[in-house]
């Protein structure tokens, strides 16, 4: 028994001494806050913050190089967590969600040419500025769908990108990849959006798209405080989101849409419509 205790104790002692020396010699300083921050991050490694993965962001925050409110997927909880660890006041980030500002799918928008080649919007955009006559509309080749780390984007059967608002975390990956900047970040609480991205004149838009904003000002006349029209394109003032909904019915081209159900029309995300009711 004594032998056992002594020998094991001896081994332990030798090992402990060796480790102790090594710990001194190979010491690497790690900011303990870095690990704490990593714990409160969502861990999706989506890169929305601009850092390679959550651990990179945690390091940046701990070193004071990154602003603590860059993590949009984590939302307010994460921010509060980081603020608690750093001992600072939380400046809230408004949760955002991506919206595809275009409804010009294959059925509604005309093409400039028939595109053959790589199924990638950026590649198609390089050939004569994209196969659609509209210079700003969705090309429908699904680069955003590929880029979305959360599976929140899908292409409709008529090749238009639609976003599932429940799955969208606001990481902006799709915004970065879209060659035509047709995906916009909007406040999550706002449910009325103008789904057009073309600044062409009304007559020109009509020549290539059935459902674009023609800059007719009817929405602005209906609810003056909620809309602004610049370069023939209406914009919702998201401060007046609730009033903006009043103009939906008035829009002659139906390019103002209501997202209050949480689903864009025509996507497979939407629950089956109950026609009986």
């Amino acid at each position: 028994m004594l032998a056992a205790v002594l020998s094991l104790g001896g081994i332990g002692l030798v090992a402990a001494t060796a480790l102790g020396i090594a710990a001194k010699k190979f010491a690497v300083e790690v900011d303990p806050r870095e690990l704490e921050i990593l714990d409160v991050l969502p861990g999706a490694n989506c890169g929305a913050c601009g850092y390679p993965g959550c651990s990179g962001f945690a390091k940046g925050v701990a070193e004071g190089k990154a602003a603590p409110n860059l993590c949009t997927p984590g939302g307010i909880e994460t921010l509060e967590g980081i603020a608690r660890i750093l001992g600072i006041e939380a400046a809230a980030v408004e949760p955002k969600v991506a919206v595809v500002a275009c409804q010009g799918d294959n059925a509604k928008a005309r093409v400039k040419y028939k595109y053959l080649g790589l199924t990638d919007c950026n590649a198609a955009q390089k050939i004569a500025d994209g196969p659609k006559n509209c210079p700003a509309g969705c090309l429908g080749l699904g680069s955003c769908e590929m880029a979305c780390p959360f599976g929140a984007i899908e292409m409709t059967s008529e090749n238009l990108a639609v976003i599932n608002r429940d799955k969208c975390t606001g990481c902006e990956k799709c915004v970065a990849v879209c060659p035509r900047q047709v995906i916009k970040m909007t406040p999550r609480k706002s449910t009325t959006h103008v789904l057009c991205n073309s600044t062409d004149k009304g007559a020109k838009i009509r020549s290539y798209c059935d459902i674009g904003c023609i800059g007719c000002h009817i929405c602005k006349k209906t609810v003056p405080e909620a809309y602004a029209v610049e370069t023939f394109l209406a914009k919702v003032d998201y401060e007046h989101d609730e009033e903006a909904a009043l103009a939906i019915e008035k829009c002659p081209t139906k390019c103002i849409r209501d997202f209050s159900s949480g689903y864009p029309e025509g996507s497979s995300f939407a629950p089956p419509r109950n026609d009986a009711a």
Partner: protein
Amino acid sequence: MDVKTFAGGLHPPDSKEYAKDKVIERCPLPDELVIPAAQHIGAPAEICVAAGDLVKKGQVIATAKGFVSVPIHASTSGEVIAVEPRLHPMGKLLPAVVIKPDGEDQWDESLQQQDPDQLDADALKKLIGQAGIVGMGGATFPAHVKLSPPEGKKIDTLILNGVECEPYLTADHRMMLEESERIIDGIKIVRKVLGLETAIIGIEINKPDAIEKLAKECAPHNIKVQPLKVQYPQGAEKQLIDACTGRQVPTGGLPMDCGVVVQNVGTCAAISDAIRLGRPLVERVATVTGPGIRNPKNLLIAVGTPLKHMLDQCDGLDGKPAKIIMGGPMMGQTQLSLDVPAIRGTSGLLIFREQDLPRKNAGPCIRCGRCISVCPIHLQPTTIAAYARLDRVDEAESYNALDCIECGCCTYICPATLPLVQSIRHIKGGIMAKRRKI
């Protein structure tokens, strides 16, 4: 005969029988000429005329902007009827000068004939720049820039590109047969500018008549004609240098990094005109060909001639066009419309009908390795394309994606008909963007 070539590449059916025996014909002037300000690599020229101005043939209508740029000249005499954005071969609306010819086709009187023997290298170079000479093979790189190697770079060899490896095209072939005197004169001028003796004309052996003719006429001028095996893309600078001299341009470098300057034979003919006649580059030879054309021809066209007008000279279309290609079938650009004008770099107009297009059945890569065996740069196109599909920029870069010359061999040979070049081009953009960011 000592026939040389390079490693890699392939041999697509050259389809040159359409136009190779057609003598160059002068194309009459169209009703209006559309001359874009951007016709070369580098900064576009700045338009210096306005609607209503009367211009003479050869008069400057847009001035060079910076060193890597050349002026643009009126291709005939007439009235400027508009200066506005027009559809450019790039597929975009870009600024252009629209001229209504007066039918006189009168040269500007201020143009001066010069004797190259009386001028020194710098003066020649300046004249070449002023004449707006660009690489006529399709790359349209300003010639005077190529002829101005930086201090310390020793250039010892001039290579003339008479390869014309693109299928269908025969413009250079006809030039070599019909304009050999101007070409040889141009070569002598370029030799003088660069201050060197060795000049080699590389010609593929599918043009035996051109090889024979030039070999005979070049002998007294100490210019060597090098027969080359028929292999695409031998006309690419790097491959031509390898084939003719056995030297290789270091990756990321220019031909001058291995002591070589390459010029197209057509460019040499233009240089001769620019000096001896004082005439700037306002016309060129282009092949109008393809199965979709009734009567394929080699046409001498004024820069700015709309494609449609060129077609009319060839008895029009045979069937409904499905693809309009400016340049050759391997590297040419598809066009949105026949209203697009031919520009200085337009070596050909190629029309395919629906039935002439390759059958499309894109499937998964079966890793057959054919793309690797044909790549003239010895890259692994399928690997790069796989990473490109997933936007994995770093991996693609590590496989030397940036060295790709986009010759199209890999896509041509791929049994799965994958758009490999397009993928690589796409990821090259990604790599450049990443580099700019850092």
